[in-house]
């Protein structure tokens, strides 16, 4: 499955799919990196000097005064908004030990068995592009493939022998699916992946609600608000976050738009919905508070006030909320279930000597990483959110590069911080341990970083440019990193936790996937599987 970085990655509000089975961990797509000021070693690793600086950085401190602008003091210009790296990455979807991979060029969908690299092929519609995993109560691997060229979707089921297909017509520009936990309901919708890719009059307002248990029942087309952003499905209701509000759709014998919560122009761009679809957190840029809406009563929201403009609000599946007010250096956190009309449940702290504007929180809510994308503050702040003596204890970790985003492992023990490299056209990432105090492992890449995937035992980072495609595989907690050259441009990556294997799907006319043993380092590429003649290297 694809989990977006940052907020959407770790919370349910932008959940496209329920997490698929036990095998899949965080897999993240990134925009291409920008230039920065670091260089990498031949193997993509760095050696620190005694001062904790990288070669060539001239002894500059990594966080204090290098590139920092606009903390509001001394007349410096204000910092821009924090940036969310929301580039969609169409991962092959893993269901158990199986990988579904779509090839838009050939129109085929491949089902690869990660255990033995066997391949099964199916011709889908025109330009199958996005793949989304489906829960399968029966245990049979299932997936939805969106065929961009024919505006329909193929619902695929593997019964152990062959793959069956059910075709469903979808609204134009559909590129996302949301599926309920029980696998009964699915919602097809379209999201503007790249700003400006649609005309302002194209609102992408049509969604289709599909009953996956009854294909005789035609999909119900509904109109929601302008430019949907995400869909959360719960029993008998779909919550559709749109650019200017939230549409509430009833699911049942009758499927219809039952309510609309107007949030204001653009407010939906920073709205999170809890996994149970009962509440929404809304941040209005520039305001020093954020709102918690009850989506059942649709009454007045609970307002949480901070000491300055709220620059980020994160929500985890576990209901942990972490909000950051950059100018005030303030962090606020609470458990949503404990929030009442008083501030009793709200914990606050301030972080000094660091610019923090964004937060990335572990899925289990135990730890978070605070950072900024708006200033070149080459450090992050790790903060403990576990109840107890260390609650809100923080420490700064120097990482030597600017930051585009942060991905945490599900258990909150590690984080990958990525961003532009020292030179134009390069990238860099840092491995930060959160469960113990260690220096970050900083790695330069020879190309901008495309994707990051983190598991409890290791991680996988893919980078690409016109000159090189490479993957970096790391082992946790050792922080060992190896670099592998890829045969072609990476399309998507992931880690099959049960198998201990990472995979990189690549652009290839007949299909190519590289499997990399996270701990063994063993590499195996499967190419040409669409020709039914597979080459295993």
């Amino acid at each position, binding site marked *: 499955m694809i989990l977006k970085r940052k907020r959407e990655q770790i919370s349910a509000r932008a959940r496209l799919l329920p997490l698929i089975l036990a095998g899949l961990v965080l897999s993240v797509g990134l925009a291409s990196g920008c230039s920065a000021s670091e260089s990498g070693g031949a193997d993509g690793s760095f050696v620190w000097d005694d001062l904790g600086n990288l070669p060539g950085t001239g002894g500059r401190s990594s966080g204090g005064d290098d590139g920092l602008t606009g903390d509001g003091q001394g007349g410096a210009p204000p910092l821009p908004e924090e940036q969310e790296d929301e580039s969609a990455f169409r991962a092959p979807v893993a269901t158990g030990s199986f990988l579904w991979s779509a090839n838009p060029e050939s129109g085929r969908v491949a089902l690869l068995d990660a255990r033995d690299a066997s391949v099964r092929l199916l011709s889908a519609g025109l330009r199958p592009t996005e793949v989304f995993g489906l829960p399968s109560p029966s245990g049979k691997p299932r997936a939805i493939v969106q065929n961009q060229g024919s505006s329909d979707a193929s619902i695929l089921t593997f019964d152990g022998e062959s793959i069956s297909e059910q075709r469903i017509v979808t609204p134009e520009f559909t590129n996302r699916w949301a599926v309920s936990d029980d696998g009964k309901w699915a919602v097809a919708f379209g999201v503007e992946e790249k700003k400006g890719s649609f005309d*302002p*009059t194209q*609102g992408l*307002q049509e969604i289709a609600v599909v009953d996956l248990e009854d294909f005789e029942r035609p999909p119900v087309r509904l*109109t929601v608000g302008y430019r949907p952003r995400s869909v959360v499905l719960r029993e008998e209701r779909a919550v559709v976050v749109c650019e200017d509000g939230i549409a509430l759709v009833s699911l049942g014998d009758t499927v219809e738009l039952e309510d609309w919560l107007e949030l204001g*122009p653009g407010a939906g761009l920073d709205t999170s919905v809890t996994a149970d679809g009962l509440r929404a957190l809304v941040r209005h840029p520039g305001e020093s508070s954020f709102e918690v809406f009850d989506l059942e009563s649709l009454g007045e929201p609970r307002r949480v006030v901070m000491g300055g403009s709220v620059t980020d609000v994160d929500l985890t599946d576990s209901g942990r909320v972490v909000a950051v007010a950059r100018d005030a250096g303030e962090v606020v956190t609470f458990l949503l279930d404990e929030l009442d009309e008083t501030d009793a449940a709200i914990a606050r702290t301030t972080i000094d000597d660091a610019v923090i504007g964004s937060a990335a929180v572990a899925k289990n809510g135990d730890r978070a990483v605070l950072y900024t994308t708006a200033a070149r503050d080459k450090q992050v702040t790790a903060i403990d959110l576990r109840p107890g003596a260390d609650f809100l204890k923080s420490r700064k970790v120097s990482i030597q590069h600017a930051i585009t985003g942060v991905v945490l492992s599900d258990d909150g023990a590690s984080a990958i911080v990525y961003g532009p490299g020292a030179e134009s056209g390069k990238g860099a990432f840092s491995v930060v341990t959160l469960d113990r105090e260690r220096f970050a492992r900083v790695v330069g890449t020879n190309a901008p970083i495309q994707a990051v995937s983190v598991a409890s035992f290791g991680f996988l980072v893919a980078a690409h440019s016109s000159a090189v495609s490479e993957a970096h595989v790391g082992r946790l907690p050792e922080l060992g990193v190896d670099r592998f050259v890829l045969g072609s441009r990476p399309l998507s990556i992931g880690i099959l936790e049960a198998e201990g294997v990472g995979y990189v799907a690549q652009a290839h006319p007949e299909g190519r996937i590289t499997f990399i043993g996270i701990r063994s380092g063993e590499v195996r590429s499967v190419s040409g599987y669409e020709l039914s003649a597979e080459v295993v290297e």
Partner: protein
Amino acid sequence: MIVLTNRGFFFACAALGLVIACSAGRPVSDYEPGTSAGGSPLGSGGSGAVPVPPEQELEGSFQAPVVSGRLVFSANPSSNRVAQIDVETLAVRVLDAGHAPTYLAPLPTGATEGGALVLNTRSRDASLLLLSNEEAGETRSLRVPVHEGANSWAIGASGRFAIAWTASGGSGSDGHQDITIIEPSERPDVMQLGVGYRPTAIHISEDETRAVVVSNPGLTVIELGEAATSGVLREYPLPMVDGARDVSVTPDGRLALVRLPGQGSLLILDLETGEEIAIPLPGELSDLDLSRDGALAVGVIRPDGRDDGEASMGGADNLGSAGAASQDAQKSLVLTFPLERILSNPSQFDVVEVEDFVGSVSLTEDQRSILAFTNALANPRVWIIDAETRSQRAVDLRAPVKSVLPSPDGRHAVAVLSPPSGSTSRGAVAFLPIDRPLPPRIEGTSSLVFHVVFSPEGDRALITTRGDSSTKSVALVAGFPTLSVQSFELPSLALAAFIVGPLEKGIVSQAHPEGRITFIDLPRGEVVTLTGYELGSRVIE
């Protein structure tokens, strides 16, 4: 009450719903200077700011086929024929008309079994195409003389009377003051009368006993009856300001509401007694809408038209979605006039203040909602005001509004928009729920929106766009309340659109030398195009 305001045709048949034409290339009206116009120019601004242009009434009609019941009538001035097409079976019958049949109008059932009327411009007569058996499509064609230059129709609700008149356009001193009153029947009665200089509209009362002709000097009230008794009852002179005036007549023909530009009052004229009531207002009305039953009138005073100085313009001419700052200075007034109450107490009208610049207003048919907007400035907002509770909410359509058309059931509306900044679309429409606070749906179009028509039940709308040499005409079918939209490309330039409610068919006539009509099965979305029906041989695709 049937109204013709322009040359061409305005569809009175209940099966057709409301027909609106909207095109940036069309003139606002065909009125000549000195005739009434939909909008009114401002008086001197006083503040020195650039004056805001008047609101535009973007309603029009077409010289195009018409629908009567399940039959489409299409006139061909070149062949002197009228084609009659059965919408259900696509059977075509070609009827002989006079010389150059041009201006068509549907004839409602009631006094007759229905059919159509067409003005033959070269033979100075009209063909009455009377249905004698709709099932079999049998139609009888009769010709009656009409005055020279007739180019418009006004037809009573039951079709008992039809009035041919001349909507003036062009130069010259001819007053076009003749009208021809016809009683369509097997033995039609015909009478010609003279009315005021350059008539601009004719209203026939619901009971078809009166016709009111609006012309340059004022109003002419005509008694309709047997040929011997029909005639002019009385005439009322009315003022104009800078050649502009707007007149609305109640469906019963009893009252005329007169709006004059620059005047802070509304004039109500009792057409039976001649009594005039001038209602003082807190500013100049920029628009006035009358309910279908004539019981309620709704008007709007723009911020620049207010007398109380409460809201001066900030000079903004673009109130985009983010124009919150400029909104602070913009306060418009929406007024409701319950007419019976007003007549006895002219000050008994209600006022709602809207914190925005609005200058046009539309009342839903059920009179439950008032829609306020402006097309004088680039304002993307439509305000929905509950007529009873006065509660109001704004709906942001993300693009400047040109026109807002409520559905017959008052639950939805179609807004015609100008493409927003940054858009490559040539046109845009929005579909908005009125009865519930749900989000609107915005759709860009590849060519200008040309025609909007609703089904009688209000559950569908048919919108056509008019392409040019580089773009195709398109028909959009919208469904309510789901706000679903289906798009169909049309093979030729769209002329007119209709919905035949009972048959659930959308019809789009198009420009083609041998005639072309596209039929859309609305529930199924299936399309059939009939071409060449006038040749008697047709191509069905």
